[in-house]
């Protein structure tokens, strides 16, 4: 799965969960500051990603996710 395919899937999950305009979701957008996620949204987001991509994300790893790009690159590495 290439980066842009992963990005599109991640974007869809973010739009669905955070109800943000999809134009706001770019590789550079900061999940908390730009997209308004709080700590509970972050937990839910990780769960949805785990389910979508069939991976397990450790809490310590999730703490490093700041931007959408961080998440996409992490998933690309794991797949």
């Amino acid at each position: 799965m290439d980066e842009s395919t992963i990005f599109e899937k991640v974007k869809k999950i973010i739009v669905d969960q955070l109800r943000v305009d999809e134009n706001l979701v770019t590789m550079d957008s900061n999940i908390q500051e730009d997209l308004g996620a709080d700590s509970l949204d972050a937990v839910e987001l990780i769960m949805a990603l785990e389910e979508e991509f069939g991976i397990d994300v450790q809490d310590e790893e999730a703490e490093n996710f700041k931007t959408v790009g961080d998440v996409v690159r992490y998933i690309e590495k794991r797949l």
Partner: protein
Amino acid sequence: MRRRVAITGLGVISPVGIGKDVFWENIKKGKSGISFISKFPTDDFPTKIAGEVKDFNPEEFIDKREARRLDRFSQFAIAATRLALEDSGWNPTEEEKENTAVIVTSGIGGFETLENQFRSLFEKGPNRISPFLIPMVIINIASGNISIFFGFKGPNYSPVSACASSAHAIGIGYRLVSTGEADFAIVGGSEASITPMGIAGFCALQALSTRNDEPEKASRPFDAKRDGFVMGEGAGILILEELNHAINRGARIYAEIVGFGASDDAYHITAPDPEGNGAVLSMKRAIKDAGINPEDINYINAHGTSTKLNDKIETLAIKKVFGEYAYKIPVSSTKSMVGHLLGAAASVESIATVLSIYEGIIHPTINYEEKDPECDLDYVPNVARKWDIKYALKNSFGFGGQNATLIFKKYEG
């Protein structure tokens, strides 16, 4: 010295309409909000009818992202609060917000969320449970969310007493304002338990009407052919305000709240005391609290559920409190039209009561066709009545034998 407490704002989400005006027009007309359940397939359910709120779009009231993090009962509560605030014309200052209590409750809380998450637990395991499960489900979260959304920083909690929950909430809010602990109180209840578990649970208790072939006729309080209650959903929010503040800002004062009494049957988890003594105590305490005589009451908005036992025993209890005078008091049941909103019932019915006082019109008890010898009061059958109410008494009784009674008074300056 107790301060007087005015009711200055009303917000309703109900099976007969959203907003005070539509609600009031419909219940004056005697319109039923009961129909076939549309939210889930009812093939295996003995009861297939309820009072659903059909045209509710949370995004008309709440940002869509926030709405997703709220169970339906919290969405109802926030929407009804927004409507009540708009209705009151009150634009609170920061200082006023600090002095505003929020006492809003529910009988059951976020049942829909709980059921969905239960499914996830069994199908996908404990690691797939939403972080929002607990904060969406707990009963006090509607009240908490109201403060978070509107910035009210006074006392905030949720008394829980099943079908009397919002009567206790209104009573406590009244106390807070009358003693000066708060200058304003946002009070009421919210319920959204028309879910497979909610309906199945009350079916198992054999508490629900099974008149599935005539949904609009199923809720028939005090009628001889009543066969159980019909579940409703929605929310009712009232704005309570210290009277002088309301006068000074030129607020519309619907009525005053002047009495609150509560008791327990100490008898059975679901059945009322056959002697009605718990209900008698609750009514007597409210009348005493109001500093009036029983003969001052000239309207009763009944708990009136349409179950065999409640209506019979509530009638008995009213006669024990009022004696012969009971036959002269009109008694009506809002549940005949909206069904039983459980923890939100008393709040929506209190709004009906307050509007009855304000307009001098009592709404009817619909579907009243055949007299039950054990229910022999004036139930305002089927047609609204012009009636100048001085003091109105509102009863609410919950499982666990938990009773509450409120007394509202016409505002006469």
